[in-house]
């Protein structure tokens, strides 16, 4: 049994946070990205779609936004609206990472 375990043991892994940028079109399709290829594509797509929904709902509330930032404890997401699509920047936050200034249009 011990011999078989060596071959069939599931691989241990911790989900990394994404770092880089993603461009999505107005339908939420990922056009291009600089995030590590090891990062799951479906999560990148989820990020794109949720960000687009924020822009869409802001437009519906008569407050179209040019840029949205979501700040989590470990990750900052900054997205700029691009003709219905968006370019999204993902910045993982380390314990001693310097304070980032928000990019402006």
């Amino acid at each position, binding site marked *: 049994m011990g011999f078989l375990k060596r071959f069939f043991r599931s691989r241990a892994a*911790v989900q990394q946070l994404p770092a880089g940028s993603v461009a999505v079109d107005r339908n939420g399709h990922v056009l291009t990205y600089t995030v590590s290829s090891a990062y799951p594509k479906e999560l990148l797509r989820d*990020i794109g779609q949720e960000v687009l929904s924020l822009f869409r709902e802001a437009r*519906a*509330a008569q*407050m179209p936004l*040019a840029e949205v*930032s979501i700040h989590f404890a470990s990750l900052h997401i900054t997205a700029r609206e691009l003709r219905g699509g968006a370019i999204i920047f993902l910045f993982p936050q380390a*314990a001693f990472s310097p304070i980032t*200034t928000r990019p*402006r249009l």
Partner: protein
Amino acid sequence: MEMRHKILVLDDDADWLNLCNEMFAHLPSEPEIRTVVSGARALALLETEPFRLLVCDLKMPRMDGLQVLSIVRRRFPELRTVVLSGLEDEEFRSRAYALGVDLFWLKTDMQVNSQMFLDCIESLLGRDMEGGFRGIQSKSLMDIIQMECLSRSSTVLRITRGPLVAKLWIQNGELIDAETEGARGEAAFLRILAWKSGTFENLPAESGRERTITRPVNALLLESAQSIDETADSVEPGSIEQTAHRKTIWKLALLTREGAEFVIVVPPEGQGEIETMGTQPSEPLAKWARRAVETAKRLGERIEAGPLSHIAGHNLERQMLVLNRGNECFLVGWPPNVAAGPLLEKSKKLVSSWDS
């Protein structure tokens, strides 16, 4: 008979579990140690048995340590958590602390400094047992409460003022309940704060106490201070309408002083009315803020990015910031010319003094 604390150790490496078992067995408090090799098994055990401490690895198959900690944080908020990992990466350290763990320790460090690690574990096990009578204090009640909250302690504060007796329950630095003379919750707390003198003593914490106070203690202290001032200044006792009018004026003054355009307080859907101060139409924006917080929280859980801090957005006309506070969220609008750097601090300041 003294109750032994239970420690649950979660790691996919059986050899490491044996090592932990041997090591924790020598702790002075002689805790009961249970070991599990998977996150799912750990969660199942936590559901069925009361544990004091969870020692968790990060890198595990199927469900990793961060996923386990994220669930534990929501379902067992009183459980102390320690991460014992071989991953020497600052990112994981900060993510673990963002999830509210009490201690992050590297396995490699433990091998060279095991005694310090064991001291930390012992301290975490015994933190709530320290309580007891710590002496009569001669400070103001506000000072005592603030000290207890800042030190993140768990205690029951018993206050005596002549024949009057009151109790305040503080759990991990948060005021959760108050009781005096037939009143309970915030009403009791505000009544106690009006006492000018008295004696105080600390009793052991009561972890099973039901929570009746949800607002932050600082907001309640500010509200109490303001209400005492108003009572002292008022020439004639004000009616409810006068108090409401005064509050509105005060909030508008606060808004103007800080330079914000509007503040919208958004309760959870179907729970209370939206409160708006400023010139913006509130309904659609409140709806957006509520949806934005829901969307961000959902996304944060999916990508394991830790708790949501805030959401910011801007266009050419204004900047907006959504702050999540308890059940409700605050949407603060700012003109475009306000510098983006201090915007978060300014918004937090505005929100924290809003209810006071």
